[in-house]
């Protein structure tokens, strides 16, 4: 396990700040092909058949095991299966280890298929995108789960793609309570080549895009929990100690790249005041991930924690 390519400190900081890591085209085509074969063909649209039935029949046929929640991730998929091979890819295993630590636990998985207009016309339903939501429930933990989104084939903009909002992971909301937000500045759509993986912090706001192409779009998601420590699981040899706090506000030029620079970069959707609280919450997450209870970037925490010597 020590030979795994762990995430660097800067990549980990990017995950802490933005709540996602994207790896384009990293799954070999042979695994993508095997996965799609294991999922099986999807029946063409049948007039009058409801989408729920189409989906249910597809899930029943697909070659995905019905794995109990809480199982060790290492035992979730049979040896030789496409998903087992995918999870054993060094890049994937290293990223999982870096983000959720040793002995991760399988939470759940799902085969997401987004159907083109012909299916909705046949069923009499409306072809719309999925509302923004945060998965599961209100999650007050500092610890977090990860969700791996696997795109086994090319996804074009017309096919929809997963929509997600970078940096939204530290907001404590209740699932689809955020559905009122149709569009938010800085949102991204997963338009990608086959074999692309998107690692998400479990708090990221996201939703499936509407498919207006003429073919189905397949995405497989697996949620993974930590079972042990998430502290210092990334490549800590790349973590450069911060010798002094950076100057803030009054700057004579751009500051050099650093973990602090990554953590302190706001998102386009940040509100003026809560953006500062977002930065503070990133500092708290970085303290958790590095096991350094005194870490600060740009003085946001220090200012509040320094007690007057009265």
């Amino acid at each position, binding site marked *: 396990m020590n030979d795994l390519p762990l995430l660097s400190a800067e990549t980990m900081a990017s995950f802490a700040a933005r709540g996602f890591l994207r790896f384009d085209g990293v799954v070999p085509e042979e695994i993508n092909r095997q996965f799609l074969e294991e999922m099986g063909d999807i029946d063409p649209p049948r007039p009058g058949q409801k989408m729920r039935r189409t989906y249910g029949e597809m899930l029943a046929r697909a070659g995905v095991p019905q794995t109990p929640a809480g199982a060790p991730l290492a035992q979730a998929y049979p040896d030789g299966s496409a998903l087992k091979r995918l999870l054993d890819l060094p890049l994937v295993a290293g990223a999982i280890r870096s983000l959720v630590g040793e002995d991760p636990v399988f939470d759940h998985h799902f085969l997401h298929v987004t159907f083109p207009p012909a299916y909705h016309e046949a069923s009499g339903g409306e072809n719309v995108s999925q*509302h923004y939501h945060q998965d599961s429930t209100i999650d007050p933990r500092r610890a977090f789960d990860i969700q791996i989104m696997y795109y086994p084939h090319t996804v074009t903009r017309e096919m929809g793609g997963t929509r997600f909002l970078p940096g939204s992971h530290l907001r404590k909301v209740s699932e689809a309570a*955020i559905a009122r*937000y149709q*569009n938010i500045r800085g*949102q991204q759509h997963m338009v990608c080549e086959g074999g692309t993986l998107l690692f998400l912090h479990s708090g990221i706001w996201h939703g499936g895009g509407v498919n207006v192409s003429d073919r189905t779009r397949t995405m497989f998601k697996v949620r993974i929990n930590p079972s042990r420590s998430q502290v210092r699981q990334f490549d800590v040899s790349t973590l450069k100690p911060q010798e002094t706090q950076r100057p803030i506000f009054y700057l004579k030029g751009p500051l050099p790249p650093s973990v602090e620079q990554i953590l302190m970069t706001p998102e386009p959707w940040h*509100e003026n*005041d809560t953006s500062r609280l977002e930065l503070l919450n990133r500092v708290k997450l970085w303290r958790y991930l590095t096991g350094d209870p005194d870490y600060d970037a740009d003085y946001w925490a220090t200012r509040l924690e320094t007690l007057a010597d009265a």
Partner: protein
Amino acid sequence: MLRQKVLALYLANSALDAVVVGWSLWDGTGETRRMAGDEDAPPYPTGLHALRDGWRLIQASPLLPHARGEEFDLAYLKYEFLFEQIVETRP
């Protein structure tokens, strides 16, 4: 027949002339069907631009004090402004 269009703008602070960071539109005329993820650039730079374009403000989110111990907890977009247009449509 009169029908309502509802526009929700989420601004960067509590001022109506602040920058738009999020937006939603529901069209009661049925002429358009807006949905999540359908537009990556906001329809107006600020809330004031929506007023100038004929949208009527019907609600703004209140400014609430921060509960002690929860000052740093963030959840929903904070500065929500709801607008309407009443539109004449043919039956």
